[in-house]
């Protein structure tokens, strides 16, 4: 049980602020995922929560107790490191027991906690081995076990799967989801740069970019209602297409004329003064459907097709630095070099002005 609250938290290395104005409310039992491009400060933010990095501004509280100056071991947190950080000279059992021994826990309780964790993580046969005699996946589980035995209020994971191969990564991701299921009260914060991990694990996702929070929301909110172009393009693969255009008709529905000559309707409401506003129209590759010539929002020549089995990706010829990608169900190799016109459901159209979504204009 732990509620975490960050208010105006920032991190500066000398003059350089790598994080600023971080406001975040994390409720007990949530699994929060920090995502963002490499170097955006995900690890830094996590390490500030852990207490391994000093917080240079703002307040961080756990259950309304200010934590800025509290030593890491007294914050009730446990962390799983990207590199596992197992103690190489200790057996699996001793690795897991270390924190409990330091806390002077009675031996019988230590043994019970380790046995339980080992059973959950299927590590029982390996308890007396050294870390170097384990596979990558097993080491990862020991690192998780070391966190579990301490029964912390908050679990922190820093890219825990990035050192595993693809198949193991999926399996371990599912194990972590099951682990969370089994501990509904514990709060978890999980850092990744992999949006699939973020979408599958998170109860809420925090997208970090440019030293701040770009958006906080459930995976579906982020997918369906991105607040800005950055989130729109970061979530989803391939990323959302952006086409420049201008609003030509306002009201409950909005009509946009695009630079390439096409036109589109959107269900986003606009006001009369928005007429003539320059906007970027966003549409996800999977929302594009073929249309008859002259009616769609985009027409172009397909340069490359990638047939993935259940879907085919169409890469259109670049116009400047912008490339449109469409994802059509089925196999469509024949469309290579063909001219294709695309349209989309008005409900699936996103509109951005100056990078911000028009959906969130007044709130």
């Amino acid at each position, binding site marked *: 049980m732990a509620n975490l609250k960050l208010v105006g938290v920032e991190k500066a290395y000398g003059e350089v602020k790598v994080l600023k104005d971080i406001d975040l409310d994390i409720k007990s039992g949530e699994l929060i995922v920090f995502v963002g491009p490499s170097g955006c400060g995900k690890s830094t933010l996590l390490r500030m929560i852990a207490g391994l990095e000093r917080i240079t501004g703002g307040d961080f509280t756990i259950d309304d107790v200010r934590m800025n100056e509290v030593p890491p071991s007294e914050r009730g947190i446990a962390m799983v490191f990207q590199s596992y950080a197992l103690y190489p*000279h200790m057996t699996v059992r001793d690795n897991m027991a270390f924190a409990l021994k330091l806390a002077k826990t009675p031996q019988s309780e230590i043994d019970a906690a380790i046995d339980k964790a080992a059973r959950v993580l299927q590590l029982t046969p390996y308890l007396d081995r050294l870390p170097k005699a384990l596979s990558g996946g097993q080491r990862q589980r020991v690192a998780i076990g070391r966190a579990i035995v301490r029964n912390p209020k908050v679990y922190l994971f820093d890219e825990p799967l990035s050192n595993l191969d693809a198949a193991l990564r999926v399996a371990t991701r599912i194990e972590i989801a099951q682990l969370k299921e089994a501990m509904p009260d514990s709060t978890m914060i999980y850092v990744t740069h992999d949006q699939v991990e973020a979408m599958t694990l998170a109860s809420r996702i925090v997208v970090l970019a440019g030293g701040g929070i770009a958006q906080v929301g459930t995976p579906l909110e982020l997918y369906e209602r991105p607040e800005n172009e950055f989130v729109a393009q970061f979530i989803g693969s391939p990323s959302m297409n952006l086409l420049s255009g201008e609003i030509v008709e306002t009201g409950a529905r909005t009509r946009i004329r695009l630079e390439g000559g096409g036109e589109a309707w959107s269900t986003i409401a606009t006001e009369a003064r928005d007429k003539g506003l320059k906007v970027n129209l966003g549409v996800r590759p999977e929302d594009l459907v073929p249309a008859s010539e002259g009616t769609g929002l985009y027409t172009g020549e397909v340069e490359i097709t990638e047939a993935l089995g259940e879907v085919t990706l169409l890469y259109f010829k670049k116009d400047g630095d912008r490339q449109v990608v469409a994802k059509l169900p089925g196999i469509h190799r024949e469309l290579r070099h063909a001219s294709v016109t695309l349209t989309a459901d008005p409900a699936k159209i996103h509109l951005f002005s100056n990078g911000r979504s028009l959906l969130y204009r007044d709130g």
Partner: protein
Amino acid sequence: MHPAIQAILTIVIGVGGCIGYFWASNLFLDKVLFPARGPEAGRNIGRANMIRPWLFLAPAMIALGLYLAYPVFATLKLSLFSKGGDTFVGFGNYAAMMGEAKFWESMRSNALWLVVVPAAATAFGLLAAQLTDRIWWGNIAKSLIFMPMAISFVGASVIWKLIYDARAADQAQIGLLNTIWMKFEGGIGSVLILQILPAIMLGVFAALMVWLLWSLIAPMARGMREGIWTRLGRILGAAITLGLALVTAGWAIGAMTADLPYGTPQTWLTIPFWNNFFLMAVLIWIQTGFAMVILSAALRGVPEDTIEAAILDGANAFQIFFKIKVPQIMGTIVVVWTTITIVVLKVFDIVRAMTNGQWGSQVLANYMYDKLFTAQDWGVGSAAAMVIMLLVTPILVWNVYSARKEMR
């Protein structure tokens, strides 16, 4: 010819000879013996490459054979012959040596050196490496600590002889130690600094040993399951710590009850038993730098995230050092320890230059020298050399084994 010119000439000829040898021998191999042309070009290149390593190894192997391997057997033979080297006496020389008080004095001193110097130098080196790690003048401190490594043992002995120097009581003392010593007049301050403080420090050390003893045998008392070797190691460690605890506790009492001769300058190097420690100080002073440099590199190699994990697990600075860092560099500590042990077993110059083995400070290497070159007794001298070699060999093997394990 001027000696300096001779030295330069030697260097030029030596280095030039090496370069010339490698150049000419490789040229001969590639152009004459197995030329890379004609119908057998491919095979010749392969054969030349098989032989090439031996070209490079040959000079070292010949030199080592001539100056190392041969002398070992020659010494063994000499040790079995009489003083002049003409009549076979079997183990007579060894028996004669065993009957000499000076030999046993040397064995005792060497044993003392063996326990104290590697332990002290490694401990100080580890301490220096850890303490200089995160301060801005750490590198300056390290350079200063490392500097004695550049001084020859004889040079260091001269420096320390000055530190231990004594003049008559009415003259100004030029020795650092006596200058300090003469400042103590026997008042309460003297008792505090020279008796109570050392007694406390020795007492703390003894207590530490008792604690170590307890932590070694506690898991056994709790009936933890473990291998026979771990158990033997525990018992051995417990015996050593018990011995050290008793000895230091005895010294602590001795320090408290001692009646110190205030006001008289001391000739430190003539005080039996304790002069050994004044000699050891020189070697510790030199070897601490070596230990520090190697251990500092090893400490830097400890993964930062294991330390962070330990911080999160609630370890304090001491626990991080002793339970996380030290165990991870144990291999390096063993290498440093054994390397210094080998240096210690061969210690000669320091004793030769400072006391020449008088006043109960004789060591094996100087004993051997005395026998060989002063008494001209080739038999007993060679026997002493064989004893030194027998003592060094197991440590050397362990040293090489640990060093190779570290490198993997």
